[in-house]
Structures are given as structure tokens and as C-alpha cells.
């Protein structure tokens, strides 16, 4: 089970600014361990953000994204008190969803 994300969402003018920290190893598949064997790739492939049942962000990621990724984005139409849910899925099928309430 993956560790929880850290999500902050706040109003910025008429938009909602969302900042997400994800806990993930983001292994590229290019590296080798001490014995010379390849370390298998393990990285987040899909990220989605849902607000009021509507997807406001959908991203496809690759192994070039750093360990413990940080994602920041803004969307229109949200209000303080509403919720934003972030979901990531990695190439091993592991999945995690966390939610945050939009602050004023």
C-alpha cells in the first residue's frame, strides 16, 4: 500500500490552485543494482484530478518524473469548501486516491 499524498487546494482569485506531493519511488528501469541486475521500472503512469464528478486534469507520466513527485496546477469553477480528489496509477497497477477540501 502506497503512502498517502499531501494535497493542498486553495482559491487563487477565481481559480483553484492545487499542490500535490506524491510518495513514489519513480524507478526508471535504466538503473542497475550492486550485482549488475536491472532494477525494474516502477513509475506513475496516470494522474487524474476530479472535482464535482468532473475530471479537471488528466496526465500521462513517464519515468523521467522525479522520485516523490510534486504537481501544481490551477482550474476554474471550484469554490471554497468543495473537494478535489487526486488519483495516480503506476505501471504495476498500484493505485492511490486522496482528497482535499478547497480552502478560501
Amino acid at each position, binding site marked *: 500500500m502506497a*503512502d*498517502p499524498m*499531501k494535497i493542498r487546494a486553495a482559491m487563487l482569485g477565481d481559480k483553484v490552485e492545487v499542490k500535490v506531493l506524491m*510518495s513514489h519511488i519513480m524507478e526508471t528501469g535504466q538503473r542497475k543494482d550492486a550485482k549488475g541486475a536491472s532494477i525494474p521500472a516502477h513509475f506513475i503512469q496516470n494522474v487524474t484530478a476530479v472535482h464535482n464528478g468532473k475530471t479537471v486534469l488528466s496526465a500521462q507520466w513517464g519515468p523521467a518524473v*522525479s522520485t516523490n513527485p*510534486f504537481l*501544481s496546477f490551477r482550474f476554474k469553477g471550484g469554490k471554497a469548501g468543495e473537494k478535489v480528489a487526486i488519483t495516480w496509477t503506476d505501471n504495476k497497477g498500484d493505485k492511490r486516491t486522496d482528497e482535499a477540501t478547497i480552502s478560501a
Partner: protein
Amino acid sequence: MERAAVVRADNKDKGGNMLKPYLVAAVLLATAGAANAQNTQQEIERYRQMIADGNPAELYEAKGEGIWKQKRGPKQVSLEQCDLGLGAGVVKGVYAQLPRYFKDADRVMDLETRLVHCMVSLQGISEADAKRNPFSTADRTSDMESLVSFVTAESKGVKMNVSLSHQKEREMYQLGEKMFYFRGGPYDFSCATCHGEDAKRIRLQDLPNLTNAKDAQRAYTTWPAYRVSQSTVRTFQWRLFDCFRQQRFPALEFTSDASVALTTFLAKNANGGTLAAPALKR
């Protein structure tokens, strides 16, 4: 670039040829180098501000809080009754007053040493197990790094206030001071070799002069830190361990008196500085 040019001028000097043009080139490059170094410094500062917003240390703080509250060890108790110096269970502000003398252990302890002590005395974990995994590697995480992140984050914004009121604290400080200036190892290095003068650097890393209060405060109050290049939070014990490695000193034993002494010396010299740890470093 600056250094390469100078070295080349020296080499030619030995041969006696072409000294003049190379010297001119060296001077020109040195001037350009100074301007570049300044720009680079500004850019590094800008990069730090950009990444400061999303410090992954926060993930470790959350994880550490979980470990702090989790019932663990043979006695199945949490660390919540651990006394870090301000009373059992108090976490807020404790890091600003560590290392300090603890009567129950009759020893001066830094944060990591105290956490090990609590794991042993409260949770019944063996000392060897508690000390087994102080620094994470590529294939295993370290609970210690998470615990330290959680505790230090609770002292953010608090001013460093290490006291030397107890005789053993003074002894530790004096021992740490001695170690700071002690030259040894195959390179005949002391800590002061790199950290005893202003405006020194290794490659692009500015080295703090730990003998002046401003640098000492800035350095100490930004450890522990999430190291972007290592994808993990590094503790102050790790920082000293790595300094010893870079000096080619014998490996610094985790939570040894030597490590606590040096920490006491550096923490006390940072008194008055405002804690900003866990910070974010390259």
C-alpha cells in the same frame, strides 16, 4: 573554468613557454568566472525558491508522525510518552534545545540518540535493532529519517536555544570544539579546513564558515533536509557521518559520544537562529 585556466598557466610556467598569453587568458577567465559564479549563485537561489514550495520532506513528516503514534516493539507501546527534553510526550519546540543532558540516561543526547533511547526503554526494542537502519539506501527506507522529520518539523520557526548549564553539556561542547579543529586522516583535514573561513566552496557548493554565528545558524537550522539528489531526508547524524567520510576519517558511529559532541558544538554555535528544518537541499 577559472581554476582550469590557472592550472594550465602554472603548467606552462614550468616549461617556461607561452607564459604571458596564458596568464592573460587566466586573468580574463578569472574575471568572467567571478561574474558567472555570482549568476550561478543567484540561479541556485532561484531554484531553491521554486522547489521550496513542494518539499517532499512533508511526506516524511506525515510518515514519521504515524510511526511516532504506532504501537511497536515487544512492549507494544507508541513513542508518545517519550521525553525529548520538555517532558513526556512534548514534541513542539524540543529540537531547538537539543542536544541536552538527560538525567534518566546520565548522558548528553541529540535527537537521534534520544529516539533510540526511547525505543529501547519504552518499546523494549533492542539497542542494536533501534540503531540498525539510521540512513536509508536505494532499496530500503529508514524509520529514523521519518521520525526525525516529524520531530524537527514541530520546531519550525523556533529559535535555537541550546544550554550548557550542566557540566556534562559543557564537556560535550568542549570535546566537540576540539574535534572541529582536530586535523587527521590521510588528507590531514579538520572540519575547520573547509568550514573555518569565509567564501570557500567545493565545486558550486558554498561552504558555510561555521565559526561565524550567521553561517552557523543558517547551516544548522536547515538540517535535517530533503536532499533532491538522494531522494530522501537526511538527518544531522547523516550530515556528520558524511563529513567524516569526505575527510576520510574512520566511520562516525551512529549516536556515538563523538557525534553528539560535534552536534552539541555546532548546535550551540547556532543559538539564536530560527529553525527551518526539514529544509530542501540540492
